[in-house]
């Protein structure tokens, strides 16, 4: 009656499990067209606001373009991150994840990666068009993309921590915002500063390396905190 061979098996190796979870997250994401489109729609909608505010003329828009794009990226991340663990908690999948014999640190990576890919990654890849729309100096675009990619990584990890801390209390995005927004501040500042530096012809390297430093620090320590927060939430 049992399908598998009855004898003691050793379960799945970590890499193949990670691949599995990765595919799972991607599939769940793809099953919800809304989630795919919403960040982009939000992005374009908000960017529409800025020309409205100060008129469409290039020379007026340009100095604000970097700031505008970065603010929007940040808000788009905020919009999405709240749900990163929500459904898994509600249907009990989170319990299963926590019970897996593999270190939680790694198991969280697919979650973070897919979220990063579908918010920051997505926006970074479309950012050139928007940058063009806001007549951002083209010299700034590579830096913009790089900084968005790195920054979105940090925001994903910080945001996931906020989501993990609030997963047990079925509450919307307000509380999460309060928890994580202050931590977004340095990312925003460095990101904008980098792009502006590139535009005026200075080197953006210091800022990018700052973001990179933040990113790797977050990547090294963040998942530990997220894991701890999830265990706390599951015990609630």
């Amino acid at each position: 009656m049992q399908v598998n061979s009855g004898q003691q098996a050793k379960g799945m190796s970590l890499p193949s499990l990670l691949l599995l979870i990765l595919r799972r997250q991607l599939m769940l994401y793809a099953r919800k067209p809304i989630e795919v489109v919403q960040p982009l729609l939000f992005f374009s909608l908000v960017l529409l606001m800025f020309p409205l505010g100060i008129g469409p003329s290039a020379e007026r828009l340009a100095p604000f373009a970097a700031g505008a794009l970065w603010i929007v990226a940040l808000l788009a991340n905020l919009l999405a991150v709240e749900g990163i663990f929500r459904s898994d908690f509600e249907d009990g999948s989170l319990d299963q994840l926590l019970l897996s014999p593999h270190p939680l640190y790694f198991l969280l990576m697919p979650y973070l990666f897919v979220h990063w890919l579908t918010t920051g990654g997505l926006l970074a890849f479309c950012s050139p068009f928007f940058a063009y729309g806001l007549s951002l100096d083209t010299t700034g675009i590579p830096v913009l993309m790089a900084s968005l990619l790195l920054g979105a990584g940090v925001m994903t990890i910080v945001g996931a921590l906020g989501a993990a801390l609030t997963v047990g209390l079925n509450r919307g995005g307000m509380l999460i915002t309060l928890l994580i927004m202050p931590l977004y501040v340095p990312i925003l500042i460095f990101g904008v500063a980098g792009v502006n530096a590139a535009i005026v012809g200075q080197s953006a390297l210091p800022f990018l390396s700052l973001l990179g430093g933040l990113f790797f620090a977050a990547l090294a320590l963040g998942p530990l905190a997220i894991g701890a927060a999830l265990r706390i939430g599951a015990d609630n």
Partner: protein
Amino acid sequence: MAEPLLEAVDLNVERGGRQLIQDFALRLSPGQLVQIRGSNGAGKTTLLRVLSGLSRFAYTGSLQRTQPLLFIGHQSAVKTLLTPRENLLFHVTGEDFGEEREIDQALAIVGLYGFEDVPVSQLSAGQQRRVNLARLFLTDRMLWLLDEPFTALDQAGVSLLEDRFGQHLSQGGAILMTSHQPLRTLRPHSEVDLSEL
């Protein structure tokens, strides 16, 4: 006698300011089925979550598990956006369920033949439950902790599950389960009634 898969010594559990479980001891060896009974709110789920390690902060006492266990709780841990097959293919527990072939077999056993590719959101309550229970026919874990495994199942489903339990025990597995209705064919090795504690 074989060393136990799960051992708990003078366990005390408090929840919401109430002492639910006092000086609880349990020793679960291969081949044993222990059934936890008790009225609603007695503390069965809490106890299971403590023993499984999901609830780390709510208890005092010593707890020993020698290997990864299988836990099925009140929630069905099934993703309604996915199909039954996908649910078993892309699980997060780290068990080795084998290929698609085995998974389809298991789904057929639990009576979901023909529903492999229907989104779970379109399945009935019992069918959704069965998707999760198909896991019991694929897992390689020896220690099972099951919280009300029979909910939403029809008569046939219940006896199917009991047969599987019997087989698992005979293969040297161990089961700790809660249930409000008594088992039909199986005789639990021992019963714990939390209401009396």
